[in-house]
């Protein structure tokens, strides 16, 4: 549903990944966990989807690698939002908020019109 509400160029996983990274630089698994928290468990990103999004976002300059670590012999790369990514997320967020506000106002008007406004 969210994907239809935002710019087709920014799909839901993309929006959620940027939102997760807006808090702080995070590695891949932490992004998955954060997205699950943000969406109250509604969305669980899988590795293939996550890294397709990360790759695209890096290519577009919206995120970048902050640092790399080796934890238990495995590479762990932390990603962070770039200034461009921050602007893009702010634009999308503002647009979503504006549309959600309109939707909310129309629903309230509709309920009033139909005479079943909430108390």
């Amino acid at each position, binding site marked *: 549903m969210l994907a239809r509400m935002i710019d087709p160029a920014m799909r839901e996983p993309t929006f959620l990944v940027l939102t997760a990274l807006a808090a702080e630089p995070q590695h891949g698994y932490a992004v998955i966990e954060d997205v699950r928290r943000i969406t109250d468990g509604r969305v669980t990103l899988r590795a293939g989807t*996550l890294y397709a999004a990360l790759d695209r976002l890096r290519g577009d300059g919206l995120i970048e690698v902050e640092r790399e670590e080796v934890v238990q012999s495995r590479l762990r790369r932390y990603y962070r939002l770039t200034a461009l990514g921050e602007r893009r997320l702010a634009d999308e967020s503002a647009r979503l908020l504006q549309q959600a506000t309109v939707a909310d106002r129309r629903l309230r008007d509709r309920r009033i019109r139909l005479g079943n406004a909430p108390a």
Partner: protein
Amino acid sequence: MTAHDELEGRYRRLMTAYPLRHRREYEEEMVGVLLAAAEPGQRRPSVRDRADLLVNALAVRLRGCAGDSGGDAWRRAAHAVQLVGALLLLAVGVRRLLPGLTFYPGVEPLEFARPAAWAAVLILASAGLRRVATGAAVAGAVVETVHVAQWYDYSPSQVLRAGWLVTLALVVAVSSAWLAGGGRVAAPRGVWLFGAALAVAVAGNAADQYQGLSIFPGFLYRTTLSSQFPFRLAGPLYLVAAALAGWAWWRQGGPVRRRILALTAPVAAIAALVTYGFAGFMYSSQQFPSPILLRPFQWAILLATPVLAFALAAVALNRWERLSALVELGRRAEKA
């Protein structure tokens, strides 16, 4: 074989659906994430994970180069070269305007245009106005070329000395033109470190002036140090500048670092060619009352060298990265 090892092996087999470059960039991370999300004792990837990996592998392959971080690394390297190159050219241009630092009296009007053009490139490129920045960079390259070319008739050696500056200006202009199309590129990390390195180098240059040593583009003219200066004051400053620049370069990450070297190979090649290949010409041209002009084959060598240097650097980079990928694959196969 433990359940964990078996699961990892199966994930790695699924990863072969991705293009090689994507695997090289993300496989270790992805396998780590998949294993971290797996249930204890799980031996096989879930159906959803299999489907997710295969669908996204197909999507990455269909996107073609979009899954190839090499293209991104080239653009990031070009952006770093654009900004740092413009900064260096701006510093050189400003230095020539400062009173007491010019080596001939007066300042030509053209010399005001040089720093102005590179300052414009810096500001416009930083503001994301890529097309206008390209226009300014092309104008800057033309100004640099005209500025040097006007000396040719009476001092061809001066033209050779400034060859690296003109080459750098052209590299910045070409990089800017390439960056004008396609997606935006994030600002390179630690540009301020390059700026700090440049500031320290300028301080070193001022110290050299104070001690009677003058550096003109590409060359050092040494005079006898005064007895009150037992060592060259600028030495430590140049070392600090080199360390700062090296640190800034290192922070760009391996793929971008290597591409920065490839993009700046033409500048290094011209500087080396002039210093070592044209040393005799420059010495002899200064011994005669009328200057000796460059011959056509010398012009051909000078014009071909930057192009060849970049081509060789790009081929070497490509081979090195392919070889590294093969070694990595071999290592993983042995481990499996």
